[in-house]
């Protein structure tokens, strides 16, 4: 098991390096300049600024310098916010986004699993069809459409909930729902299919043949086995949540990292773009790693296979 974990960590480092390199060069291909009024500054001033930030050096040299700084934990200084380091910007935005993301994921996964299980247990009834209709809608309606519909009806028309901002529990409801609906839909569909397969398997008959009650059969035998594949799609659905949050944070004016990321790209704020990308990629890599570990905890067959390798 230890060897397995070490191997996975090594792969993570390699992946991380590739992501940082690719994003660095991709970013250099972005059109535009980081200086807001480059035309008014005049060529001399621009040249001086370029020298100050090291942009006059060839790109490979800039790349090496940047990598060196990243290895020392220094993500640079923002161009847009004078004197603020990228680290401090990220640190102030992350808690808000994490809050939103975690709430949306927990709600999405829980509701998805419950709806999927109910649909499977009541297969072929109106409950099943109802859940599947919700799932298809959830997958096909983009979160930003749903967000704006909710803003209009619950915020503007009915005035039940605040239209935007991020203070107080009421302001969380709409953005969390908008973000979670996609995962609810995906997970409910997976869960339903898994559960139907598991319910038809011999060991469920066997459990019933022991005389266990229906709830005991469902909870002890069917649920756990259906959850194995679900563990692997929690992270992809988390990714949906994160990419979704780029837009949702904008729509609801939530001062999170997604909102920050979008504006940093618009303004060519190189250090913030890179810093955010690095943060996201670390987050994804760790998430995928944890998924694999969780897989092993749920399914003992994988635990052993991993330990042997």
């Amino acid at each position: 098991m230890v060897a397995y974990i070490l191997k996975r960590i090594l792969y993570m480092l390699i992946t991380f390096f590739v992501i940082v390199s690719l994003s660095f060069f991709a970013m250099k291909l972005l059109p535009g300049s980081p200086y807001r009024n480059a035309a008014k500054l005049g060529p001399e001033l621009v040249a001086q600024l370029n020298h100050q930030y090291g942009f006059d050096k060839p790109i490979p040299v800039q790349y090496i310098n940047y990598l060196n700084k990243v290895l020392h934990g220094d993500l640079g200084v923002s161009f847009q916010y004078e004197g603020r380091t990228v680290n401090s910007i990220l640190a102030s935005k992350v808690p808000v986004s994490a809050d939103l993301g975690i709430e949306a994921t927990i709600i999405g996964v829980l509701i998805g699993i419950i709806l999927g299980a109910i649909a499977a247990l009541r297969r072929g009834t109106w409950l099943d069809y109802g859940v599947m209709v919700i799932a298809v809608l959830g997958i096909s309606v983009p979160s930003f459409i749903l967000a704006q519909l909710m803003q209009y009806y619950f915020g503007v028309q009915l005035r039940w909930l605040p239209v935007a901002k991020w203070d107080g529990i009421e302001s969380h409801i709409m953005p969390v729902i908008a973000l979670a609906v996609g995962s609810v839909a995906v997970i409910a569909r997976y869960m339903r299919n898994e559960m139907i397969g598991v319910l038809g398997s011999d060991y469920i008959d066997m459990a019933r043949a022991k005389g266990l009650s229906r709830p005991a059969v469902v909870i002890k035998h069917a649920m756990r086995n259906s959850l194995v594949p679900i563990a692997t799609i929690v992270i992809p659905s988390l990714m949906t949540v994160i990419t979704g949050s780029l837009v949702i944070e904008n729509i609801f004016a939530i001062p999170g990292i997604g909102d920050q990321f979008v504006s940093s790209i618009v303004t060519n704020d190189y250090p913030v773009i890179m810093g955010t990308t690095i943060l996201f990629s670390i987050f994804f890599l760790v998430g995928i790693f944890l998924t694999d570990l969780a897989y092993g905890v749920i399914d003992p067959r994988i635990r052993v296979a991993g330990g042997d390798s």
Partner: protein
Amino acid sequence: MLENILEIKDLRVSFETYAGEVQAVRGVNLELKKGEALAIVGESGSGKSVTSKSIMRLIPSPPGKFKSGEILFEGNDLLKLSEKSMQKMRGSEISMIFQDPMTSLNPTMTVGKQIMEGLKKHQNMNKHDAAQRAVELLELVGIPNPEDRIKQYPHQFSGGMRQRVVIAIALACNPKVLIADEPTTALDVTIQAQILDLMKDLQKKTNTSIILITHDLGVVANMAQRVAVMYGGKIVETGNVDEIFYSPKHPYTWGLLSSMPKLDSKSDELMAIPGTPPDLSNPPKGCPFAARCPHAMKVCTEHMPEYTELSETQKTACWLLDERAPKVEPPETIGVGGAQK
């Protein structure tokens, strides 16, 4: 005369499908005596598994449906029990061994826990006692190092060992009736013999009545005292083992016996019964075997024959046994070379 522990009377089970109603079991009568091993033989789709699952009431409904009949266990009709009372019967009074040990154990639960579940449910054992009993059971079914093995998961066991675990689970609460649905089909031949020996041995020790579902006549000869031959959702012939092997009267039983490979046969080819089983969504009016029977007469396709009692134990449903029918000798190929005893 031994007492009947289980009696099936005119059982009819159907499945609703898109193609219409499939009548899987069409009026089965059977009785199981205390301490006896009864084999139900027949090819795939003959209704033998549906009959056995009906006894456990494990037929999913919908699509499955009991059309009529009674299943009397010690005089009580199982089909009339509430789901709750049925749960008390399953695993404690009647239990079941499934066909494929690779899929009949829950992969995410330790073997010990799977054995203990039934004990906790039916005998109100606490964790400690149940664990102790689980170790005893594994020992009983011949699994070495049971103390360590109960903490392991099914994937850490071989196929034969898993089937031993399944047997241990089935026997955990000392059931009075054990239904074994093709318990050796999924195992390789040497393991098959071991599992059969184990089951025979356990039957002697516990005096459990066994219903053995199989299409393997070798297994029948080895284990059972009585045999019911099923075809097209009906029982076409019953008798004790000697009668079925040495003086079968139904042409389908002849066909089954002929299709068994013989040790002394010089031919490379296996004998087969030509044709396919009847479509039970549109079952034949007469004898279900008529379409494949080499001796079929006009009456066979139109009327189901009544049972003719040939002895106290042997009953056969065939028009050939009618006094007006021509005399037909059973084919020589039914020779009992394949039956080991």
